[in-house]
């Protein structure tokens, strides 16, 4: 009986399905489609937050999807802690913690043990944080954690691995001028933050050679301890057992003070037109200035403004004008990267064949001026705003990504209601707000233009004479030298 009814139901549905396939039913335009609402509330860090008895904060997000466990420990401080005479020390220390075995195991033994368990382990230092991560099969968790903690608590800093890693680092230094994009990134940081600030500072070959085991050990002491750590674990585990395992793993580990906040750069960007030589058929350009701190009240309108200007992919103005209309570049975009404790930077960048570098630069400068002078249309604001609102949930989608947001927010003391109010604040931004922040933060006269490429081919501009490099800063160009890749001294 049931079966028969089921069949009837299917049969009665079939004609509907056929009707649904009728192309006439397809709406003429995508705007005519109607969508079910999709409610999303950002997850609250407090729901995932735990504190171990020694005070260490742990975020846990269990999930049965795959038989894996991902654990990461985020330590405060990275390049920000480098001494003036040893840039790169924190990054190098992080690498050697991973490479150098433990006090009880030689590196090859240690690596073999991990690899046999199929456990992946990494340690790396960025500008302001150092992260150690472990990804293992849940069946191997206990054994993996033991090795992981042995490495973090008592790294071996094996002499042979120290030599090998130095040799690898020296080989990398030798490549410093090979890729124009790397030259551009380096020179931008030097101009924007000052060559001595940790964002820009890079080691010479001699400084790499001079790195000692003692220096690494001291940096390790400073960064890697529970007083300076926040832990995040996602994957297939039981919360109670995980907390107990972590308690045990951290037991007896001396807690030091947390690392100091990063020092703000003292350098000021000098506006102007800069050039660095490189023999390539394309000029690579950055146009930018220092910008805002993360918690600046203008941050949200500025993010929206930047979306409209150059961060919104094909929908952004720079992409439409420079790439889509004129075909002058493959990649063109702008970014705003606020820093937590000091003003970050704004950068517009692209690359174009030598003859059209000037034209593309002119178009970008014109668009920066236009977004300050003309109110942005409601339609354009709405498109960019919908994009940001609709993709807002994406940063919380995967468990590891969500936990990383919580860890960063905890370390940087992000205002607790930030994510909850983000969309409301975004909805409230007006065209006038956008113009106000554009005027305040995007003054083209305060920007530097850096061009890496073949100046003689770039300077005259395009065949049709639509633009030349003379148009910028009165044509006064500051030629920056290429730097010796090993000494960083200017090359003749």
């Amino acid at each position: 009986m049931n079966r028969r009814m089921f069949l009837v139901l299917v049969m009665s549905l079939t004609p509907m399905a056929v009707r649904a396939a009728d192309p006439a039913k397809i709406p003429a335009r995508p705007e005519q489609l109607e969508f079910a609402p999709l409610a999303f509330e950002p997850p609250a860090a407090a729901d995932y937050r735990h504190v171990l008895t020694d005070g260490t904060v742990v975020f846990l997000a269990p999930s049965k999807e795959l038989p894996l466990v991902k654990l990461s420990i985020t330590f405060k401080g990275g390049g920000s802690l480098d001494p003036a005479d040893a840039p790169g020390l924190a990054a190098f220390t992080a690498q050697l913690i991973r490479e150098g075995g433990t006090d009880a195991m030689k590196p090859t033994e240690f690596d073999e043990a991990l690899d046999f368990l199929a456990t992946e382990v990494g340690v790396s230092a960025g500008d302001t944080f150092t992260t150690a991560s472990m990804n293992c099969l849940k069946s191997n968790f206990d054994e993996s954690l033991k090795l992981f903690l042995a490495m973090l608590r008592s790294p071996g800093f094996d002499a042979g691995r120290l030599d090998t890693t130095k040799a690898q680092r020296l080989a990398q230094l030798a490549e410093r001028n090979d890729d124009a994009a790397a030259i551009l990134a380096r020179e931008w940081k030097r101009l924007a933050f000052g060559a001595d600030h940790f964002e820009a500072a890079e080691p010479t070959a001699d400084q790499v050679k001079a790195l000692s085991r003692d220096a690494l050990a001291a940096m390790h002491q400073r960064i890697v301890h529970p007083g300076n750590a926040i832990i995040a674990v996602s994957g297939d585990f039981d919360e109670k057992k995980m907390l107990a395992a972590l308690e045990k793993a951290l037991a007896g580990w001396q807690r030091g003070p947390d690392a100091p906040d990063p020092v703000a750069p003292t350098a000021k960007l000098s506006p102007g037109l800069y050039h660095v030589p490189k023999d390539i058929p394309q000029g690579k350009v950055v146009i930018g200035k220092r910008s805002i701190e993360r918690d600046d009240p203008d941050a949200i309108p500025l993010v929206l403004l930047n979306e409209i200007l150059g961060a919104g992919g094909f929908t952004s103005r720079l992409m439409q004008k420079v790439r889509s209309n004129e075909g002058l570049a493959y990649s063109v975009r702008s970014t705003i990267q606020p820093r937590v404790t000091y003003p970050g930077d704004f950068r517009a960048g692209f690359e174009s064949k030598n003859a059209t570098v000037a034209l593309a630069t002119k178009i970008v400068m014109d668009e920066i001026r236009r977004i300050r002078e003309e109110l942005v249309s409601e339609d354009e604001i709405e498109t960019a705003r919908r994009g940001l609102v609709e993709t807002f949930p994406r940063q919380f989608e995967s468990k590891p990504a969500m936990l990383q947001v919580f860890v960063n927010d905890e370390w940087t003391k992000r205002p607790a209601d930030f994510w909850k109010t983000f969309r409301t604040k975004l909805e409230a931004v007006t065209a006038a707000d956008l113009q106000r922040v554009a005027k305040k933060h995007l003054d083209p006269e305060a920007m530097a233009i850096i061009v890496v490429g073949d100046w003689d081919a770039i300077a005259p501009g395009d065949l049709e004479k639509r633009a030349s490099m003379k148009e910028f800063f009165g044509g006064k160009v500051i030629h920056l030298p290429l730097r010796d890749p090993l000494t960083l001294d200017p090359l003749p």
Partner: protein
Amino acid sequence: MFQLSRHGLRVVPLLFAIVAVIATPADAQQVAVEEFRLENGMEFLLVPRRDQPNVVSAGWVARVGSVNERPGITGISHFFEHMMFKGTDTIGTRDPAKDARFRAEQKAIRDEINRIVWTKQYDRFFKGEIDDPWNPANDTQQLRVLRARLDDLIRAQQGRGPGGEAAGTIVKDEFDQVYTRGGGSGMNAFTSNDITCYFITVPSNKLELWAWMESDRLNGSVFREFYSERDVVHEERRLRTESTPTGKFEEQFDAMFWASSGYSWPVIGWTSDLNSYTFEQAQEYWNVYYRPGNVFGVLVGDFDPAEAKKLITKYFSRLKPGDRAPPPVVTLEVQQLAEQRMIASGDFPPAVDIRYHTVPAGHADSYALDMLAEVLNERTGRLYAGLVEGRGIAAGASTYSDTRKYAGLFAVSAQARGDATPEDLELAWYEELAKLQAADVPDRELRKVKNRVAAGNFRKLESNMNLFIQLAFSEALLDWREINEGPAKYESVTAADIRRVAKKYFDSTNRSVAIYRRKAN
């Protein structure tokens, strides 16, 4: 945070080679894929997953890549990837009829330009009168006039001509705008030697928007901006190939390595061809390769399969089946008879690349070749132990087995440390190879590698987009089931198998060597 590299990946050589392996196939996670086929021949692979709520990674794959091209139209597969974002009669224009007239006028002029360049300018070039037949600086008066007229038409169509915006017909990048408003993210596409893949992540409630947009462009892309978009691809070529330290040399190495196969030309195409595609060639390519029978869709994420099938049926059923099947790729790679060697100097560190012809994806030996690569790679692999740490001559060394649809290669590369030369690295590799040919890989070493590959089988499932890409390659090159069946095949590889392939494919006559030296300043 939102940085885009649209049309980003041109080549994805490693993904397929890395399709993972499992030590104990009994534990292997089986990916539950539902197949769904429309009457017009379009197939869909549906993988509902709940772990990442509210989003779906969605896309489709055209079974076409640079290997399907021929001299004269190299790079056209990749160029299509750009054209597919330029709209239809609905998306991308406010006046389709007038827009079509603009396109027809542009075509007439560009055909004339091409005709003149291919005859007169090529002739002047062959006689040594000009250095580049395509460079506008070498234009004749007639060409200058034609090029100016073409530019005027392009501007007028964009609303930047004398009639201003009102006279234009293009709604710029409307395809992207619609998705942006709809909450799409990561919209992108890539072209490889074998496949072209288009994808995006959309909120779960916007699946119908995806179906509308994708079926619209598969149904009626009009190749808008067919001529002006070429400038963008030229910039892409300059960016990826000509302005990178090794780009041009890698391209030459490919061209040297592959003798007869369609893998010899670059995915982005040779510059002269990039200038030369005609609208007819594009239309022909479209009619053959972008038909529902040659395209398949993949959905991975938080969606209801019944609802998805309804939407797919409603929207994708409008695609008309093609009237002919794509021609088979018939030219096989000829056997290499003698070692080939390329010596390059430039702004790069001393290094060596060594390649061997092997087998296509799915070949019985492909599994042992992948395992051989695994034995050599990673921190505990033989290259690190032998070249980096043992002999202390390499800063880094790695290898991969790249098995494509119609042929394959095994590649070893190493960068020199200190005073070591590329030749030192090359010799050291031959010594490591000889060991693999002389004795079986010990049990524990093989077990370790299998464990690693087995765990990778789970790790590859961690993100929806990663699984999407794996399914795209598996289905296009072999069968999506390979994602579930591959692990057992890798597990069954023995030390004897590895030794056998190490002997079979690594003769000196089957290898090509690129020596890279740093150019003195």
